[in-house]
């Protein structure tokens, strides 16, 4: 335990930062050599605007996160957590948190999901299950991960506010790791949450505090929890401010950038490192907005994206759209981490966390989603929307045909439903997908034909 702790602290405080610094120097050196000699791979600018400088810091931050994670088990308590879990309750107990969904996105970007998924499909898991779940379970079974190694959990923390699949997925993890599973069950909200719904969730959060203390062995003073909530709220507000720079014309970044820069608010929410990063990103975005530096070179048509991204096809899709002057300036997915978190009130930890986590977009009815989309369409002044019908995320995809029709009828927004999967490229027909997107873009450019 002591050895592991020393190793962990050494990585987190000395070796890791040193590695990042060396990496940065190497990068700077390469760029300087390129500038002087004019050799080497020139960065392909068009059809995008100048790249965000913050991205390098994001890479450092996430690399450090996964690097320290390799040495976390045995050194500090480790929890594996769903993306919508009220993680603020766990943080004061000193948990290192792993987000299998974020890890799944990394696997998807590296196009590793089919390989990991097949490992558990052989065990009988259906290909119809969420690709994140299959990928995570496959990574656990095979030990393969682009992160090098994921720390073994001491606690599994699952909240049903994003879907019901997480419950069965985390039960499978609990069975595998033989560790406790805490469940925060959030009743689906039609309209507004009823008092008994709030009480039901609040009771679970109260119980969660006890479990967190027991598993970690760390007693938490009330002011420590309040402090974490303050940090979390500040992080949410910073992320919200970053997203809102997309209202500027042209937008200083793209929705695809926002998918990438989402990682800290998902997996490091409630930490100072997360907030420090978003201060840097916000400064850069606001500066770009002021100076008119665009996310794509020629922003002609502004779009909204609904649902998770298609991680394995992110670059191709971004390029195809940008080449024709189409830019995602807002997405309901990235907005989800800016919206409900704003309900956090450090003075009322359990009560406000209950309200925040029960009111996430996926745990609310379709009228709420329509209202959110309409508000975003207006505030970001978009002309079109792409609704990703995600084979791996049914709760997010249900009702999209109606949403599409209502956006067209009520706001004159042209919308396309694009069938794909957020992580498993076997479920995406790229030729057909590209054809649909091209047809969608052409429909904005039609002169009155004869």
């Amino acid at each position, binding site marked *: 335990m002591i050895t592991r702790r020393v190793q962990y602290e050494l990585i987190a405080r000395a070796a890791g930062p040193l590695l990042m610094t060396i990496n940065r120097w190497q990068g700077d050196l390469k760029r300087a050599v390129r500038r002087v000699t004019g050799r080497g791979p020139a960065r392909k600018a068009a059809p995008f605007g100048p790249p965000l400088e913050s991205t390098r810091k994001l890479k450092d931050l996430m690399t450090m996160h996964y690097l320290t994670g390799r040495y976390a088990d045995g050194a500090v308590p480790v929890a594996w957590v769903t993306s919508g879990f009220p993680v603020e309750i766990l943080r004061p107990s000193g948990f290192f948190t792993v987000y299998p969904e974020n890890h799944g996105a990394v696997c998807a970007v590296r196009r590793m999901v089919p390989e990991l998924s097949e490992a558990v499909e052989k065990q009988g898991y259906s290909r119809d299950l969420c690709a994140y779940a299959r990928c995570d379970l496959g990574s656990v079974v095979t030990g393969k991960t682009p992160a090098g190694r994921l720390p073994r959990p001491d606690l599994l923390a699952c909240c049903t506010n994003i879907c019901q699949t997480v419950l069965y997925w985390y039960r499978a993890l609990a069975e595998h790791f033989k560790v406790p599973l805490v469940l925060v069950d959030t009743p689906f909200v039609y309209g507004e949450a009823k008092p008994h719904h709030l009480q039901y969730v609040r009771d679970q959060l109260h119980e969660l505090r006890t479990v967190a203390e027991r598993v970690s062995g760390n007693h938490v003073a009330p002011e420590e929890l309040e402090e974490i909530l303050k940090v979390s709220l500040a992080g949410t507000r910073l992320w919200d401010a970053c997203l809102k720079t997309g209202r500027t014309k042209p937008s200083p970044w793209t929705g695809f950038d926002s998918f990438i820069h989402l990682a800290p608010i998902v997996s490091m929410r409630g930490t100072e490192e997360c907030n420090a990063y978003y201060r840097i990103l916000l400064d850069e975005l606001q500066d770009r907005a002021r100076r008119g530096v665009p996310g794509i070179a020629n922003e002609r048509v502004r779009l909204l994206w609904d649902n998770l991204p298609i991680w394995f096809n992110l670059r191709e899709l971004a390029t195809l759209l940008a080449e024709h002057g189409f830019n995602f300036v807002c997405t309901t997915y990235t907005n989800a981490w800016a919206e409900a978190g704003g309900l956090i009130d450090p003075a009322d930890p359990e009560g406000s966390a209950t309200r925040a986590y029960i009111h996430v977009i996926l745990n609310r009815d379709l009228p709420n989603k329509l209202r959110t989309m309409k508000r975003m369409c207006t505030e970001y002044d978009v002309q079109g929307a792409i609704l990703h019908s995600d084979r791996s995320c049914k709760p997010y995809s249900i009702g999209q045909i109606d949403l599409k029709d209502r956006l*067209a009828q009520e706001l004159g927004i042209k919308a396309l439903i694009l069938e794909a999967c957020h992580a498993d490229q076997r479920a995406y027909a790229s030729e*057909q997908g590209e054809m649909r997107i091209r047809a969608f873009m052409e429909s904005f450019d*039609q002169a009155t034909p004869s």
Partner: protein
Amino acid sequence: MSDAAKAVALGVDAGSTTWKAVAIDATGAIVASLVEPAEPRIGAQTERAVAVLRTQAGADAAVPLGATGYGRKRVAAARSLTEITCHARGAFARMRRPGVLIDVGGQDTKVIRIGAAGDVADFSMNDKCAAGTGRFLEVILGRLHVPLGEVAAFAARAERSVLVSSTCTVFAESEVVSLVAEGQPVEGIVKGLHAALASRVAALAGTMPQDGGVFMSGGVALNPAMVEALAGALGRRVEIVPDPQLVGALGAALAVRP
């Protein structure tokens, strides 16, 4: 050739089953056309056939070429547009009014809502399997040894339609084998296949408001049994766009017309 009939633009629709091309005059009328089975080497086929068309229409190399269809990227020196845009343009040019256009192609089925200005107001396509496409009919009719040219006659002779429950091309093929083995009449099975395909297409069309006309383009529109089955499934009259097979190529030509 008179001035009015002088070709001002060419359009190619390199589909998965059939290769089509038209030459149009300044009024948008078709002055020459070609329809051939699609060859695996689309680029070579296009080069040869476009040369033939240019000769037929008296169109020199300066006459612009528009291309659509799955092979459009293999058509050299052409402006490339999707079938959605081209079918809408071609159909609107012929029908002169808004409506819902159904194009049952070899590889996919498209339902396009054409707006009042001839624009694509909305569209929907079958998902990535072959169910609901022309290929569905082609594969299963091949299994039944029914020539494509005689399909409508076969269906017309059927005393009753035999239910083909699966719309998956692969499963339907094995289902049809079983039906034949049970002694079901081929004519009834052919009629049943049309009903199965029509119900699939109607479900796709059902996602769009059908307040205007319902039009049909593509090679499958030349099959009266399919048009009848589709009208039955939709409960609406289905109007065939003139020269239905050429609608995509016409749209591609209109898009590049000077």
